[in-house]
Structure formats: structure tokens, C-alpha cells
């Protein structure tokens, strides 16, 4: 099934940007991420495709010790999707190349025409790698 037009247009914009951007659908699945976001995530979209929420939520942590994974349903992305508010925060992430890094995450809900909850756009800014 084709994606909603708002997601299609968001992806087209993200493809042209060097800003690291990922798109998640309403279920939290990362359905697209651009080249710059791939650098932070440690994966390339063209090679790996979509990332299920179960595969990436356990890689985000609130503390540098990276012991307690962020309860993603509590803090952020799902909350952004259902609560319609923007998330901004600094987190620790162990990316798919197993590199630990501190990232700024800004997550913006995508509310489509007729108030449809479509997903979210996530901006990853790499602060530093440990």
C-alpha cells in the first residue's frame, strides 16, 4: 500500500537535505531515513530499508552508562505520535555499528490534512561519539 502523500512529500524533501532526518509511521516504524541520518544510525536506507520499532528503540538511552534503555512508549516517539507535541532532548544512542554516541533528537509529529495522525519526522544531531 502506498504511503500517505504527506509522507511521500516529506521523504522527497528529506532526500534533498543534508540535515539528518528520519520518518516514522504511526506505529513507530522508521520507514525512511536520509543519508545523513544513516550516518548517525549506522545503517544505509538503500541497503537496509525500513527499521521496525523493536529494532531501534532499545538503542536509545537517557544516561551515558547506557544501562537502562529509554522506555520509548513513555518518553518520546510514540508520545509524539499520539500526543501531538514536539519532543526535544539529548539522548545516548548505540547505533547499528555498535558505536556509542550522544545525540540531540527533535521529533515533530506529522499531522496530515483533515487532522490525520500520520507519523513523525525525527531530526538526529550528533553531539559527540564516545
Amino acid at each position, binding site marked *: *500500500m*502506498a504511503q500517505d502523500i504527506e509522507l*511521500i*512529500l516529506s521523504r*522527497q524533501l528529506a*532526500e534533498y537535505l543534508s540535515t539528518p532526518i528520519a520518518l516514522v509511521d504511526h506505529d513507530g516504524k522508521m520507514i525512511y531515513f536520509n543519508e545523513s541520518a544513516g550516518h548517525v544510525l549506522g545503517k544505509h536506507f538503500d541497503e537496509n530499508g525500513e527499521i521496525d520499532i523493536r529494532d531501534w528503540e532499545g538503542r536509545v538511552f537517557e544516561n551515558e552508562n547506557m544501562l537502562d534503555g529509554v522506555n520509548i512508549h513513555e518518553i518520546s516517539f510514540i508520545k509524539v505520535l499520539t500526543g501531538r507535541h514536539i519532543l526535544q532532548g539529548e539522548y545516548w544512542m548505540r547505533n547499528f555499528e555498535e558505536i556509542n554516541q550522544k545525540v540531540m533528537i527533535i521529533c515533530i509529529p506529522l499531522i496530515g*490534512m*483533515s*487532522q490525520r495522525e500520520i507519523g513523525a519526522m525525527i531530526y538526529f544531531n550528533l553531539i559527540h561519539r564516545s
Partner: protein
Amino acid sequence: MTLQFWGTRGSIPTFNDETQIYGGNTSCVSLVDQGTLIIFDAGSGIKRLTDSEYIKGFKEFHILLTHMHFDHIQGLGFFGPFFNPENKVNIYGPAINSEELIKTLSKYLSPPLFPVRIRDFKADVQFHALPKRSLKIDHLSVSSAYLCHPGPTLGYRINNEQTTLCYIPDHEVALGVPSFPKSTTWTSGFDLAADTDLLIHDAQYSNQEYQAKIGWGHSSFNQAIRFGELCRTKKLFLFHHDPAHSDQQLEELLAEQTPASRNFEINLAKEGDRIELN
């Protein structure tokens, strides 16, 4: 299922010696099936429909508007059945609710732009906000979805038990796509047009013209044909002809862009043409 083109031109009505074959009226297409009449868009072609014998005998009308650009609504005030109290006219279009749809159309259908207001219509006029994944108009199933075109714009897919057709008159299917076509999942309009018996699709520009008009909301002949191929349609009608294109230019573009090997029919939509499906 019978389809008829009443207006195939894009942007502005264009009547001159060079538009005699494919027509000069703006978007309007009718569909009749088992006593149900559906009208796609209300461009200037709807006046020709109103004046014809074609709609005699109908008391209920369904007008499916794709969007509110003027070339798709400019004929609305001239739709004769509005002025007969025995008629019921259903107007569908992109909006959050019916009030918003009325408000948008009232901008045109009120002074000073037009002397007659919606409330002056004698018929029972009902407004329906879309999109909806599925909608029933009598026995016909209708689905609608937003497409890539400036401003909220819908495409329609309609089917009876045997036949499926799709109407996408304004669509920049390849906006921002470096290599078109992409995967079906990421192609605007794919779900509406997939596996249809007939697809009516925007083909306003030549390849060269498209390069100068990226972002204007329309497709080239080449993109429309590739989209038809991707969607596995059986019959493609290229639509929304550029007002600057003469009949001869349209035929040249068709000849130039039609692939030698293909497994579907490609035609230029021609005002007045009637197509029997089923």
C-alpha cells in the same frame, strides 16, 4: 459503464483553430453506470454536458471535484440541474467537513465573482467532504486520496463489479523524484490507479517543458505513461492538455513518447469522445 469527455484541456478554456480535435473546454468527465451519473470535475466542459441530451432523465447527480483550482470549478455555476427543484445534486470535494467545502466554493459562487449564490440554487444540494477510503454511490464503490499537486487535491477510483477506473487530472507524480518511477509504496496515487481498466491522468507537458515547470503540479507525457505502466492499467487516457499545445503538437508528443513495446493502450483524451467499458 459509459465514460464521456466533456472537457480535456488544462488551466484555461482554449478555443482556436488548433484545438478543434482534442477540445478547448476544461476538465469535465461523466460516468454513467446502471442509472447512476457521476461527473468528475466542473470545468467549463460541464456546460457542454448540461446543454446535451445526455443528462436528460436524471434527477440525482454526483459531482466529484478533485480540487478547487478554477479550471476545475469554473463551470459549476452553469450546471443546469441546480435550478430545478426536483433535482438532487451531491457535491464531493477535498475538505475537513461539508461546511468548509461550502465556504470554499462560496468564494466563487457569490458576488462579486458570480451573481448567483449557492443558497439560490433550487435543487436539493448536498455537500460531502473527502477523502474517504471507501464510499458508496448507489452500487458504485468510490475511493479517494490526496495526491501531489499544490493545494489539497484528490484522485478518484471507482468500480462496479466488473470494471475499475481512475481519474487523476492534476498530478505531479514525479515531483522531487530523481529517478522516476520509484517503488510503488512511495509513488503518489499508486493505490488509486493500480490494476485499473482505465486511467485518466495528467499529461500537461513535454519533457522539456516539465523541466521549466517543476513544482507547478503537473506531469509530462513520459511520466504519465511510466505511471500507467507502473500501475498496470489497461487503458491510459492522457488528459489536462496544455493550453499552448495544438492538436498537432499533442499527436506529435504522443507518437514521440509512446514506447514501441507496451502492454497497455495509450490515448489522448478527446472532448466529445464516449468510451464503453465492461
